[in-house]
């Protein structure tokens, strides 16, 4: 009985994380019913992954930039620009994909360095620099493409957007076995990691989640991963881009929670002055964040171009809005210092499922945009409401200097997003499956595939 009460208390204190997860599940269920089961058909699930992958890749970099207290409005244009560059390199110049891909990522890094320089070292707000970048790189895209699309791309590059891992059973069995092995292996790894994490927390007397909640959550994640594995395996197996995404999510989650660089990023966003006075090289960290964002935007551009099999003048338009929305729906704080890669992925999936579901239903982009806008507003509104309800929001606490005595803010006002995310983060690659094409994905919406 007391365990139940404890769990309930815990759930209320973690309303944000639980809420976003529940929201994703509800949205999936809703569209599953509305679309008469099309949403979770193996083919559509596969589609969701591929269509949404570039937004999720962008959201990784975006949430990091947002955690540091900045924003990047230029990622859509950079993705489009890199798409154009890759077209010139591969189609016009005939470069091999294994030279062109690193070269494109390098160009992305240079673009990021350009913006990072203005933001970190000159001190122009990121909003302005990247707004300029949005125009600059859209312009460069048009110039590079001479306002015409470049197509077709060789199969090797196209595999990045629409390819699958080879079927080791030679297409004879019901399930694609490599996918099953990866899925089951991944699930086992997550279980192992979660239990290990919990043991460590207990060992150091840190507050732990109640056992009931921990068990439910872990079991749920495991079941979810296995379900997705089953769905993917009964269609064409594991999309290559899912592997790319999984590696990125694991690597960046670890980077953000365990590396000096990641920790400095949180420190800068949480309190820039304190970070500076603690000897953190804030400018260097900011610069690197934007270089990283440039590389990820380049990768997203490559995936998108590969998927469409063409580099288009308008490619990547609106990606910045989707990736920013993903980060905020996923719990990142506008003032910085709070957010997780895992959260941004869930946020991205919510947007993706909405897109995909509404496309299947045949809703026009007018209603799609209206609904997505409202979802973003509600998600962040819920955050703010939550903070105020728990007494003394963060901004209030900052204003009144000595007033944050424990009694005044008995309940944690901030979405303490980081701790549970360490566990949830590992779950990401698997969860990262249902998703629908966003703005740029018009021509490849789910309807066409079903």
């Amino acid at each position, binding site marked *: 009985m007391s365990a139940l009460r404890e769990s309930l208390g815990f759930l209320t204190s973690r309303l944000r994380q639980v809420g976003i997860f529940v929201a994703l599940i509800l949205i999936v269920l809703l569209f599953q019913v509305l679309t008469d089961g099309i949403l979770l058909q193996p083919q559509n699930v596969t589609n969701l992954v591929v269509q949404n992958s570039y937004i999720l890749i962008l959201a990784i970099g975006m949430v990091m930039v947002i955690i540091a207290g900045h924003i990047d409005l230029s990622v859509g244009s950079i993705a489009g620009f890199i798409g154009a560059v890759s077209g010139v390199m591969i189609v016009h110049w005939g470069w091999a994909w294994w030279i062109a891909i690193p070269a494109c990522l390098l160009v992305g890094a240079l673009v990021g360095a350009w913006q990072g320089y203005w933001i970190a070292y000159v001190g122009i707000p990121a909003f302005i620099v990247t707004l300029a970048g949005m125009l600059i790189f859209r312009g460069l895209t048009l110039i590079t493409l001479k306002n015409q699309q470049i197509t077709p791309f060789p199969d090797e590059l196209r595999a990045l957007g629409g390819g699958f891992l080879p079927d080791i059973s030679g297409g004879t069995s019901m399930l694609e076995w490599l996918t099953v092995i990866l899925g089951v292996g991944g699930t086992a790894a997550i279980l192992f990691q979660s239990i290990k994490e919990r043991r460590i927390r207990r060992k150091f007397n840190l507050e732990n989640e109640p056992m009931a909640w921990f068990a439910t959550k872990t079991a749920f994640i495991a079941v979810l991963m296995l379900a997705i594995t089953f769905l993917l395996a009964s269609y064409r197996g594991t999309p290559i881009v899912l592997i790319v995404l999984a590696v990125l999510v694991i690597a960046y989650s670890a980077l953000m*929670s365990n590396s000096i660089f990641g920790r400095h990023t949180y420190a800068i966003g949480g309190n820039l002055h304190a970070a500076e006075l603690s000897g953190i090289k804030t400018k260097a960290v900011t610069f690197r964040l934007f270089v990283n964002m440039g590389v990820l935007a380049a990768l997203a551009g490559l995936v998108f171009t590969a998927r469409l099999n063409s580099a288009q003048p308008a490619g990547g338009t609106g990606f910045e809005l989707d990736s920013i929305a993903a980060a905020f729906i996923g719990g990142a704080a506008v003032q910085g210092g709070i957010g997780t890669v895992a959260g941004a992925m869930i946020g991205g999936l919510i947007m993706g499922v909405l897109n995909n579901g509404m496309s299947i239903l045949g809703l026009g982009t007018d209603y799609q945009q209206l609904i997505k806008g409202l979802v973003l507003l509600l998600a962040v509104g819920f955050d703010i409401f939550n903070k105020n309800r728990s007494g003394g929001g963060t901004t209030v606490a900052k204003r009144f200097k000595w007033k944050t005595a424990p009694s005044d803010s008995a309940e944690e006002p901030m979405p303490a997003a980081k701790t549970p995310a360490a566990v949830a983060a590992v779950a990401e690659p698997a969860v990262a499956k249902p998703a629908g094409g966003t703005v740029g994905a018009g021509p490849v919406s789910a309807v066409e595939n079903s």
Partner: protein
Amino acid sequence: MNVPILQMRGITKTFPGVKALQDVTLDVNRGEVHAICGENGAGKSTLMKVLSGVYPHNTFDGDILFENEPCDFSTISDSEKRGIVIIHQELALSPYLSIAENIFLGNELASRGWVDWRKTNLEAAKLLARVGLSENPVTPIQHISVGKQQLVEIAKALSKEVKLLILDEPTAALNDEDSGHLLDLILHLKGQGVTSIIISHKLNEIRKVADAVTIIRDGRTIETLRLDQGQITQERIIRGMVGRDLESLYPDRTPSIGEEVLRIEDWTVQHPQDHSRTVVHNASLNVRKGEVVGLAGLMGAGRTELAMSVFGRTYGRAVSGKVFKHGQEINTSTVPEAIRHGIAYATEDRKHYGLNLIEDIKRNVSMAALGKLAKRGWVDRNEETIVANRYRTSMNIKAPSVAAITGKLSGGNQQKVVLSKWMFSDPDVLILDEPTRGIDVGAKFEIYTIIAELAAEGKAVIVISSELPELLGICDRIYTLSAGHITGEVPIAEATQETLMHYMTQEKE
């Protein structure tokens, strides 16, 4: 004379999981200055928020009678209509607006939506005169000193025809002179019939102005002391606040002073914006192993500016001068360099410059020396937790665990986290800027003990403080600054408040 103006009865305010106030009683008589004392987190601010309508009337239990009429405020403006005005310690002024605009902010003198500027400025000038200011009402608020801004806040309160003025730590950011003015003004207003409630940590101020003192501890009223009954004594207030007698305000220590660790020579710093102003002039000072050196000075004397410019040039421009450590000249032009050379600077403003308030204790402790916990860029989080737990025990940081968010801790515990952070960076020289600001009496003693221990470990400690008794209590040697010049160097045996104040006010040309 003893006519009650305010009676708060049985106030109980509960936050999820915590009783912030429990059956609190407060009686304030008309025309008196009533001080509220209590440690940080005791519930003083919560009580004032209950009174002023920040917490609406149905969110707490108990009754409030103001001028014998029950109060059920839902917002601050409800309480202001009845003449209850609260002035927060962090001033609520808009820096770019004029004094007059600020005074009538939200309460504009207007007809049919259009501001009457002539009337606004005239009325503002009258109100300014009442608080003893002769400033032009059209001066932007950012161009007057913090002390005067505080007075403008009071003028603003007067414009609302205040009957009960609540001041939350009004002198925390003021120097002694401005504090004195402010306290005089409170007494002056008392003469005009304004009742005041003043929340303060400074016992000497309370003794100067208060007719009555109510002590709150752990959300309960301990007692109300009245001047006319001869009850207001420092010992009694402290005993009430901490629940025990403090034999001594400062720990005993026997200094064991070694060789010179840090020497600063001919240090000169210009103001970062105003290039014609030199904030520190040719300052030279030194500190030795195991020694606690004080830096005394009035507000604006350049103490913090001196310290921050030495610590990675985090203040000022055109910094010139030399820093020597163990006789070798060192480069401290960036914070990482300064830290590498074993210098640590714990800021006077821990909320804005010292802590990441949305992060937990362990991440704040490790912030300045994350590299010590990392291999090839990856942080060993277990080690981090072990380190943080070690400091939690040794510094007596009161928190459920090292995963507690620092923004939720009391001022004293936050300060201990800041000190832990710098101790973990393993410095040879610690510069502590106002280490006990905004901290209650019990925690102050703990901080002093930590400083004494640091010195005993062989660290060189520089303490900047506005409280002279504090410097006299913990230092071995005190430098005085006045208008950017070092005007005196006084061994503790010769130091008294009077000699220090003499040097601190000395003009040097």
